[in-house]
């Protein structure tokens, strides 16, 4: 009646259609799973220095101003883990406006959280993981600076969606004069 290939063929095409339908359902429903994370960032200190070669890939880094932040972070992200969460990507950005540039956003710290055991964050007096400098060489005339914590869940399958952020103001001071000079 029906040979092997025909049976295999119709099973495969049914499986593909079912898979597509499942994919669409999962993608559409995952962003709506409720969660109530808590997070709080406290900034302790910002220090700006210049005159040291910090970035080997960037020739201008010797004379540019680099800011070093000291901050605390408290967060409980366990409720953000649902059946479709592979990991959480938490990152802190420094945003500011500068002359000629409307938006400047720089990731200064990030962490990958893989399960609920790692989801309770308690950081004290941490420094920024990545260099914080302006596109221009100096932070002079920088306005409206703030630090924002974002939490981005990555699903096992489906659409990427954004969740959760917290903003605190940031003030980048002028650099201290160094005796050794730039």
């Amino acid at each position, binding site marked *: 009646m029906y040979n092997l290939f025909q049976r295999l063929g119709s099973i495969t095409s049914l499986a593909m259609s079912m898979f597509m339908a499942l*994919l669409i359902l999962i993608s559409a429903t995952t962003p709506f799973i409720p969660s109530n994370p808590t997070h709080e960032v406290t900034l302790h200190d910002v220090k700006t220095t210049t005159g040291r070669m910090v970035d080997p890939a960037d020739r201008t880094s010797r004379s540019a101003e680099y800011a070093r932040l000291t901050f605390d972070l408290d967060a409980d992200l366990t409720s953000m883990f649902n059946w479709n969460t*592979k990991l959480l990507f938490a990152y802190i*950005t420094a945003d500011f406006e500068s002359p000629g540039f409307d*938006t400047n*956003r720089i990731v200064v710290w990030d962490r990958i959280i893989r399960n609920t055991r790692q989801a309770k964050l308690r950081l004290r007096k941490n420094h920024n993981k990545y260099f914080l400098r302006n596109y221009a060489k100096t932070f002079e005339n920088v306005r409206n600076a703030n630090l924002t914590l974002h939490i981005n869940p990555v699903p096992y399958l489906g659409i990427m969606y954004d969740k959760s952020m917290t903003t605190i103001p940031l003030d980048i001071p002028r650099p201290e004069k160094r005796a050794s000079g730039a």
Partner: protein
Amino acid sequence: MELLSQAKKWGVRSLLIQGLTFLSVLTSAFMIWKGLSLFTNSESPVVVVLSGSMKPAYDRGDILFLHNGFSPIEVGEVVVYKLNEKPIPIVHRVMKVHTENESGKQYLLTKGDNNSADDRGLYNPGQTWIQRDEIIGRVKGFVPYAGMGTIWMNDYPYLKTVLLGTLCVMSLFGGD
């Protein structure tokens, strides 16, 4: 020889009709692809992850659905970009964004989650930032491991010939 006699039995007309059906399937697939490229403003709206530089979020063989759109790139987004001189697209996260207010020109720096250094070593010599037009798209959705077939075919080219050969043999002798 039995193939020729089978062909004569069907007649030229039905052979031509079969050819036409085949061509229209091929062209509608092509149209769907190009239409998707237009809608997402991306030259390649579906890509396969080739390296492990974004582990554990994206692993080799994941299929990514991209949407480029026209809006400026935001920090923290995972983007696929292709440098102007290099042929390979790279999937990494945007770490720094500087947007000029007059021209809207963006200066972007990317880094793979699994890499300790940012991508300046990967850029063209002398290039410290990438531009908006080097971005193929932002990752909007993905299906894990669905693209492993493409990776195997790239790594073991004889698989391609084996697959093609099997398909040809099946289509010649399967239609009874």
